[in-house]
């Protein structure tokens, strides 16, 4: 196992440490709460000369992604970080980056979208970008945020993929929460991420190429098919990188984290930091003999549809906890529930569990164990009676 040191770090510091070790050729970023600390920490690394990065202090997030696109097309390693309104502002070019198959890595510290203005955590920002063509990975802890950042570089730059990766952690809860984080030895981290050798570069003036051409109806469709096929190929690569990382650190990563799922009759599916709270509750309920399990998806894009359906086989009732709303979707459900419901319909052979959705934690609303206990009680009732009841419910909301 590789050497590492233990530090007390918040999620932002953990990510900026990963960025320091990755030592990207170019970082273009714009500060926004609660991602600010990442940009500030990285600025200090640049000021202290501990990285070789050309740091482009852009005037907006759209500028950040625009500069990243130019820099990445120019054949080097490129990173950025954002949150909330910043991600929303760069929307247009988030799609451009993925469609040009530029292997960028973007750290997203999840935060609610306006209006009303709110700086705290929910997943509206990155969930809104779920169809932009990026790989999306969600972290529960600062440790995972660090680990995922290193792995994201390898995944994005995989020659079969060349697809940008968005690496998420929860704003404030993880981003500002100090935890025990194992930081790989610098040399080991650098060895793991390796060097990036682009197939094509805008700077190759001897072999000039045209990037971002204008496609008509005669080619656009084929290009989109190639893009979606590449994203569909990502899962084994993500798993392979996660296993290699596991051999290096002892922390193996996969598509999702199952907990107590082997004989579970009811299950909770939830992303990011709330999985920690849910795990505590599941553990306590297990001690009481209740057959409940937990699944924490790590990869949301590409969506692990078959894998989740397989993992939920034998479960009678499942509750999805969504930290955002897909406005206007079926009963105002959240994206994770919608994706899972579609997967259960497509691959469940009509024998899947009864599924309900809980919208929670919008705008940073706290999630306490009692809420998760309520979910467990609801699930047990559904499993026992076979009656699903309301499709979409709300946790911790004053009605």
């Amino acid at each position: 196992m590789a050497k590492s040191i233990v530090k007390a770090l918040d999620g932002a510091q953990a990510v900026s440490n990963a960025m320091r070790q990755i030592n990207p050729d170019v970082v273009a970023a714009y500060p926004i709460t609660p991602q600010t600390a990442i940009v500030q920490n990285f600025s200090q690394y640049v000021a202290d000369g501990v990285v070789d990065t050309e740091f482009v202090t852009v005037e907006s997030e759209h500028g950040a992604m625009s500069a990243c696109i130019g820099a990445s097309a120019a054949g080097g390693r490129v990173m950025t970080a954002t949150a909330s309104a910043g991600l929303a502002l760069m929307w247009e070019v988030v799609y451009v980056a993925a469609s040009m198959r530029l292997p960028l890595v973007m750290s997203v510290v999840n935060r609610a979208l306006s209006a009303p203005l709110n700086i705290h955590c929910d997943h509206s920002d990155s969930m809104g970008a779920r169809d932009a063509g990026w790989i999306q990975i969600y972290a529960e802890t600062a440790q995972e945020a660090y680990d995922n950042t290193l792995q994201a570089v390898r995944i994005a730059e995989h020659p079969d993929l060349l697809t940008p990766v968005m690496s998420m952690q929860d704003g404030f809860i993880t981003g500002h929460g100090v935890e025990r984080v194992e930081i790989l030895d610098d040399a080991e981290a650098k060895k793991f991420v390796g060097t990036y050798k682009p197939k094509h570069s805008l700077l190759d003036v001897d072999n000039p190429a045209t990037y971002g051409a204008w496609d008509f109806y005669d080619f656009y469709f084929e290009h989109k098919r190639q893009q979606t096929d590449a994203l569909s190929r990502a899962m084994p690569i993500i798993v392979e990188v996660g296993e290699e990382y596991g051999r290096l650190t002892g922390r193996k990563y996969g598509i999702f984290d199952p907990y107590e799922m082997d004989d579970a009759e009811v299950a909770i599916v939830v992303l990011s930091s709330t999985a920690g709270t849910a795990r505590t509750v599941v553990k306590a309920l297990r001690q009481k003999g209740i057959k409940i399990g937990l699944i924490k998806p790590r990869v949301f894009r590409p969506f692990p549809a078959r894998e989740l359906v397989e993992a939920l086989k034998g479960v009678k009732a499942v509750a999805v906890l969504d930290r955002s709303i897909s406005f206007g979707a079926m009963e105002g459900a959240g994206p994770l529930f919608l994706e899972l419901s579609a997967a259960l319909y497509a691959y469940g052979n009509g024998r899947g569990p009864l599924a309900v959705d809980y919208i929670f934690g919008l705008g940073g609303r706290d999630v306490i164990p009692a809420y998760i206990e309520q979910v467990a009680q609801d699930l047990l009732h559904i499993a026992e009676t076979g009656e699903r009841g309301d499709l979409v419910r709300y946790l911790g909301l004053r009605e």
Partner: protein
Amino acid sequence: MAIKLKELAGKEERLVPGHRLCAGCAESIIIRQIVNAIEEPVVIATATGCLEVASSVYPWTSWRVPWIHSAFENASTTAAGAEAMYRSLVRQGKIEDKDIKFLAFGGDGATYDIGLQWISGTFERGHKVIYVCLNNEAYMNTGIQRSSATPLGASTTTSPAGKVIPGKTQWRKPLTRIMAAHDIPYVAQASPHRWRDLMEKARKAVEADGPAFINVISPCPRGWRHDSSMSVEVAKMAVETCYWPLYEVRNGTEWTLNYKPREKKPVADWLKMQGRFRHLFTPQFEHVVEELQAKVDEEWERLLTLCGE
């Protein structure tokens, strides 16, 4: 610095024939003058617009140099990103220093309007990017809609001349001055009919070794409503009437007038060449011609003062 025609004739073209720009479009003339005047290798970013859609129709390209299009507003920042990567890789010894020059091309929509913030940021950060505005004074690619470069009185599809309104009711944004106010090493206004002046300006922009901006008037037969054979003549008249003075500004302070017409022609001479101003030559709207002349005179006098003329 001197431009020799003989030398130019032997040079390989960087923008090659086969593109789909309209007959008479000044853009390809301007681009060839600029990119062929530059000796060094170039990397070019282009904003969404006529040039982009006409020169990069997949699976073809008219570019014999590395070229990138990302979006409408961000050609400057796309070029700045590539330039930052180049500096980074050269500094780290990962690639050889080939003295690459970075250019960005955008129309007046991309430059005066939607992309202004991006250009301003690129210049403030000191990226060595030469930004060229191909100024045809309206959103021509989408069908002749007004921009902030469209002059007073011009009829466009979103500022049409009607029974009561004589085309665009505002003057135009003083963009070249705004760019000069960034105190960057080199800013210039140019016209394709003074080809030697334009080509020298391209070289000066390279030699300025910092952010540079060149605003080039680019007559558009479709939008300006003149015969496609007249583009260069129309550009020339814009300069002879002092509607489009040729000048350069170094470091925001050193203003130089590059051409002073022997006899300043009335702006009406330029307006009459173009169908987009036809409605101004009616009793109802002729006052607009006077207003236009007053604006041109005001800006010209101001420029003469700035240039110490």
